[in-house]
């Protein structure tokens, strides 16, 4: 085992594997920073180039690219309030307000360090858990996935800020939005208003980009200043961001584990894990008042989770050939192109390659973070450029981001529509993250609900694992209420119930 671990590390640094890894990182770096063009599309575009490569080189190219998109996507979220990747949307909630306060360097450093730690945590879990996780993943069927998605909804309360009712309603509207498109049961169009382009449903990227980015553009113009109102701080802020990762090590570590675990579960992935991690960061903090206004823990949580998800998502893909997400499904295509069959062979005959995946995730993130730190001050200075000069570029990227998901003008219109809805939500103080969570989870809940119902009838709700998961959800829902009640009743400070780092 150790021998395979060492030889796979050496293998990564051979020619042509390492140059291909660097090319992959470079592509992933650019793709991550540019809004709208996701790792998924790029992975699909790059797949044909791997035909003539050897397996390790091919995966170095693909994984190098994939594993850095979330990291650099966080930077766009922080700097401009536009998610560079859909899996980096949660970073906006606190990252962009930090940039506005002139703490872009600190926020980016925190995002980078937490991303690195998250990626390493995910890679370690990938290396350690393949033999352990097999029975767990195989136990999970549609009823358990349904229950897990329901548990995800319980985090709405934490994402809702002051108004829980508005948050729940916002999540509910996300659920309704997720129903637009063809009915998975009968194939009948639902709520498409006769527009065939809506048969595939409402895309997550146009909604997310519109909801978060357009209000920022309006805000930037109304202020008439640069993104950073108070001027960007220097290297000190960057160093503070690095230190924050270790001061709040508990949040970083727990969110890494959340990301890894959610990544393992087919159908969820980084899109969900970032929000769950954010909600956890809020829930586990004594002082929740600063969240949404530029709390560094709101950056550390999603940053760690969206990166650790990749390691987690690779586990079922490698071990069972079960791709947990569309990205993993494309990566599975790379396995087939290379003549590899995921499954027990990957743990015996191709153990070298499996361990190479672990190293590739770690090394590509190390290189990316080192590269980013070199240019962090320059990147942070973008926030000091006059807002009027940035607005056309941001607007073009926002609309392109909406367009790019399915190359459709309609999607660009959806971006615009949700931009104005986002503006209205900001004006009326309605929380936006629950709507995204509802949209992400709505499809999962519906699909797994019907499969479960058809296979098991209503009895699926009484499966032992489902009951356990639902009880965890109920506990997560009522824990904050219980905390508040007990602290009032017993006269204890709320800090008693949260981790020491807070």
């Amino acid at each position, binding site marked *: 085992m150790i021998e395979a671990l060492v030889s796979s590390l050496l293998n990564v640094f051979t020619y042509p594997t390492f140059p291909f890894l660097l090319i992959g990182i470079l592509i992933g770096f650019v793709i991550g920073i540019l809004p709208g063009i996701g790792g998924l599309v790029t992975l699909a575009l790059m797949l044909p180039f791997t035909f003539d490569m050897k397996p390790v080189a091919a995966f170095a190219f693909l994984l190098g690219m994939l594993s850095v998109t979330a990291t650099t996507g966080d930077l766009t979220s922080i700097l401009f309030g536009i998610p560079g990747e859909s899996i980096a949307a949660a970073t906006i909630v606190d990252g962009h307000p930090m940039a506005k306060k002139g703490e872009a360097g600190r926020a980016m450093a925190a995002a980078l360090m937490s991303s690195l730690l998250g990626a390493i945590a995910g890679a370690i879990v990938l290396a350690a858990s393949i033999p352990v996780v097999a029975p767990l993943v195989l136990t999970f069927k549609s009823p358990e996935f349904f229950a897990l998605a329901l548990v995800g909804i319980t985090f709405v309360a934490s994402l809702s800020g002051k108004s829980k009712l508005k948050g729940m309603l916002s999540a*509910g509207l996300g659920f309704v939005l997720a129903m637009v498109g063809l*009915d998975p049961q009968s194939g009948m169009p639902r709520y498409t208003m006769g527009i065939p382009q809506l048969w595939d449903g409402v895309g997550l990227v146009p909604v997310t980009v519109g909801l978060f980015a357009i209000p920022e553009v309006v805000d930037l113009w109304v202020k008439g200043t640069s993104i950073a109102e108070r001027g960007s701080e220097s290297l000190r802020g960057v160093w503070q961001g690095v230190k924050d990762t270790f001061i709040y090590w508990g949040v970083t570590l727990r969110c890494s584990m959340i990301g890894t675990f959610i990544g393992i579960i087919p159908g969820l992935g980084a899109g969900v894990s970032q929000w769950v991690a954010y909600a956890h960061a809020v829930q586990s903090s004594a002082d929740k008042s600063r969240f949404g206004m530029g709390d560094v823990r709101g950056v550390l949580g999603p940053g760690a989770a969206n990166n650790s998800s990749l390691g987690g998502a690779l586990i079922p893909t490698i071990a069972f050939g079960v791709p947990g997400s569309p990205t993993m499904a494309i990566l599975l295509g790379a396995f087939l192109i290379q003549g590899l069959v995921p499954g027990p062979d990957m743990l015996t005959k191709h153990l070298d390659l499996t361990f190479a995946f672990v190293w590739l995730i770690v090394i590509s993130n190390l290189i990316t973070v080192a590269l980013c730190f070199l240019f962090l001050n320059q990147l942070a200075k973008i926030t000091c450029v006059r807002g009027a000069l940035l*607005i056309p*570029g941001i607007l073009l990227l926002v609309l392109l981001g909406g367009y790019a998901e399915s190359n459709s003008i309609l999607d660009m219109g959806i971006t615009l529509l949700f931009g104005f809805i986002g503006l209205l939500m900001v004006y*009326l103080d309605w929380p936006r993250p629950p709507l995204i969570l509802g949209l992400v989870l709505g499809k999962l809940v519906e699909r797994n609900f019907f499969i479960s119902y058809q296979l098991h009838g209503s009895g699926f709700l009484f499966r032992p694992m489902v009951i356990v998961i639902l009880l965890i959800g109920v506990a997560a829902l009522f824990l904050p209420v219980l905390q508040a009640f007990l602290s009032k009743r017993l006269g204890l400070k709320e800090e008693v119930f949260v981790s020491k780092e807070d």
Partner: protein
Amino acid sequence: MSPKRIELIVSLFIVLVLGWVLWEARAWQFHSRLFPWSVGFCVLGLALIQLAFSLRDYLRFEPTLEVGPQRTPLSEAVLYGQVTSEPEVVRGRIIVICAWILGFYLGLWFLGFKLGSLILTFAFLRFTAKERRSVSATVAIMSYLFFLAVFDLILAMPLTSGLIAELIGASSLESFVIDILRWAFPG
């Protein structure tokens, strides 16, 4: 219009939309209707509660707001203490930028991404942001080159050539203009 009144209108609109969602599903098969109704009725319940709260707030606070100081339209901006302008000025700026956002959408739709990025960037910077002509032109050209190099040449994204180019049957507006120039100046 005060925020309370807008919130009341929004809450009412949500109730109406949810009513339509439930009404639309009434004729579907049981399996197709089950999920939209399960979710729809729950969300409608929440929406009705929200409507009741909005109505209460409107009736309770509206008279004082009408005579009191107006709330700045962007709550985030107020939150961060960034807006110091008069509400009328802020409202005017919001209308301008919203018109531009719509203008960018229509511009990209009609002109395509490459030419659109050039023209729209220049127009915004020169006529709205009141930047100098040289600055506006430089930023616009950089924007055009960025779109051309990154999205068209390197990533080979199928960017729309624009509705106008489609209507006149040209591959793009740029090539159409070049063709006209070639025709006008054959040498």
